[in-house]
């Protein structure tokens, strides 16, 4: 027997112990910083190592407590889970490094570092588990960590955003739990691989459809797909920006990953209505999200609506459910995680540079002259999100469009192209408003249509605060570089995505590895 590859549990244990160490250093900011950055760095290495292991050996599984497969809980890392865990680790590191300069002292000392690690643990756990109920538990870990991060240090708007977020997500959790219960009642197993075998024998299409829809509702709220996205733009931009970056990079994508995993393995292959339903939702998500983005003026809110709109692309890949479409969705998911996190980090740097903590783009401008490096960095994620070559977003969209056209889904291809164009428009407007137009002081008659300053939105930082070069720009630079690298190395990266997609559509290898039969 092959030695059990313990590397699979490393992405869960490393953040867990780092969080404990951060809690032990409660109140000591510098110590917490060092521990947390070290932990996130080691997590990146472990994520990379896990990905290499999975790529070389195929699906890696670990039976927790050594209970035989369908009865005990297993961790199962396939290409999809391992690569997303690695990307999540890099985003976590970038957000944590940014927190060392972009967060006020109180939030930093009062738990950000520990809770950020708990959140990374939840995300990695969700990406690596092979059990539906365990997936629920990881979702709750993620959720409670996100509750704390969102309300940390709370101002008025932040707490109100948190209420909406908490309420919606607790409803989603209750639905998820009920769906898990019903699923167990009908199929009789919670192990994903075992269930994938057994659902084929269940002859209750109406019941399975209803359970699948409940899962869709639960994950749809978390992934912010149409029409369940309205809480996201209210909640995501309100906390300090490293938290927004962490959320934008991880949370919604975990919801979509869960959808790919459960619906791809259990529901879509067994009923015909899923394709049209998911494609309709995808198209509506794209258009609604991008329309929302164009109607906004706040930096964080524009990015949040873009985030919603682009969830549509990944959902589109799942709806197409062809190797090419799903590969496009998976590749796009990695790219989008990086791009959205980068944009939130840039938004934070912009807010610091302009002294405009509210992020109102109407009172910004002229940053091109004062912060040319930041402006140059903005171009990378903006191009990638808009789908311009050679950035990663272009190849993801290309793959999705080719898959849609190959299956003759012309209208979803049209919607995807329209959404890409609207993204370009939205990014161009953001560029114009923040970097290109003359600064407010040089405009005639002051800021036109300037909003009244509300007392509770007084900028928290001094205007024109310096951004420390290494801690400030390095995370953005690394993420933007990663997006460029993903675009330049599109061929091998797409092969990885393709293999991940084929594992979902034809899960034989996953099932063999997870159930512990001889390969």
């Amino acid at each position, binding site marked *: 027997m092959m030695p059990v590859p313990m590397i699979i549990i490393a992405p869960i244990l490393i953040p867990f112990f780092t969080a404990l160490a951060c809690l032990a250093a409660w109140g000591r900011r510098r110590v917490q910083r060092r521990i947390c950055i070290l932990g996130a760095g080691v997590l990146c290495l472990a994520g990379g190592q896990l990905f290499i292991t999975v790529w070389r050996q195929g699906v890696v599984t670990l039976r927790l407590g050594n209970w035989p497969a369908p009865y005990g809980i297993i961790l199962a890392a396939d290409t999809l889970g391992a690569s997303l865990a690695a990307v999540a680790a890099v985003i976590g590191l970038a957000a944590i490094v940014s927190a060392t300069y972009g967060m006020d002292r109180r939030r930093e000392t009062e738990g950000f570092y520990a809770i950020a690690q708990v959140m990374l643990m939840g995300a990695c756990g969700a990406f690596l588990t092979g059990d539906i*109920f365990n997936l*629920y*538990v990881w979702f*709750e870990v993620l*959720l*409670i960590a996100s*509750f*704390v991060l969102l*309300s940390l240090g*709370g*101002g*008025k*708007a*932040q*707490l*109100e*955003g*948190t*209420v*909406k977020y*908490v*309420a919606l997500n*607790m*409803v989603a*959790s*209750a*639905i998820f*739990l*009920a769906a*898990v*219960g*019903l699923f*167990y*009642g009908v199929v009789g197993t*919670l192990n994903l691989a075992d269930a994938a075998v057994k659902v084929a024998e269940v002859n209750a299409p109406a019941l399975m459809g209803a359970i699948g829809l409940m899962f869709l509702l639960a994950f749809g709220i978390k992934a912010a797909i149409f029409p369940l996205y309205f809480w996201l733009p*209210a*909640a995501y*931009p*309100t906390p300090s920006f490293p938290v927004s970056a962490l959320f934008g990079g991880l949370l919604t994508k975990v919801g979509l990953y869960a959808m790919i995993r459960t619906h791809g393995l259990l529901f879509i292959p067994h009923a015909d209505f899923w394709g049209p339903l998911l494609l309709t939702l995808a198209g509506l998500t794209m258009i609604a999200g991008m329309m929302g983005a164009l109607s*906004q*003026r*706040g*930096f*964080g*809110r524009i990015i949040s609506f873009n985030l919603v709109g682009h969830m549509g692309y990944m959902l589109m890949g799942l709806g197409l459910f062809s190797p090419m479409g799903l590969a496009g969705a998976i590749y796009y998911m990695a790219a989008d995680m990086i791009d959205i996190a980068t944009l939130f980090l840039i938004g934070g740097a912009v807010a610091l540079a302009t002294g405009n903590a*509210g*992020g*109102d783009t109407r009172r910004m401008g002229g940053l091109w002259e004062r912060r040319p490096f930041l402006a140059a960095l903005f171009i990378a994620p903006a191009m990638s999100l808009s789908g311009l070559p050679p950035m990663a977003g272009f190849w993801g969209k290309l793959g999705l469009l080719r898959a849609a056209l190959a299956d003759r889904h012309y209208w979803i291809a049209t919607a995807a192209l329209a959404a890409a164009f609207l993204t370009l428009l939205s990014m161009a407007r953001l560029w114009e408003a923040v970097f290109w137009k003359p600064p407010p002081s040089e405009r005639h008659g002051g800021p036109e249509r300037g*909003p009244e300053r*509300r007392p*509770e*939105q007084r900028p928290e930082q001094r205007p024109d605060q310096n951004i420390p070069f290494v801690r400030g720009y390095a995370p953005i630079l690394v993420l933007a570089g990663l997006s460029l690298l993903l675009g330049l190395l599109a061929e091998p990266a797409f092969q990885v995505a393709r293999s991940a997609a084929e594992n979902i559509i034809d899960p034989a290898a996953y099932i063999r590895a997870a159930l512990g039969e001889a390969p």
Partner: protein
Amino acid sequence: MEVILSFLTGSLYAAGLYLMMRRSLFKLILGLMLMGHAANLLLFTIGGLKRGAPPFIQEGMSRLTGDFADPLPQALILTAIVIGFGLNAFAVMLIRRVHETTGTDDLDEMRHADGPIR
């Protein structure tokens, strides 16, 4: 028994949803708690109710035989209760903080996060 529990589950969901539709923040949290309980009860019921058949392996046997109560749903519920307890504790503290900060219990008054900011 299943019928009674089904109706009870349904009533809990209905009551939870009704409370969530109110504008009061406190009722929202109560509604969320009831929804959680409803989900737990649903799990319990759907696992199948059996009396007097504990899942013990009889002496001299190597595996379970015959009819036995499935312990798994109960393990799931225990986990869900613990998680729900944590979530509810957080939610209660949150509404206290929100009430202190905003001075209102009315959800319709909480519009600051939707303004043209950020």
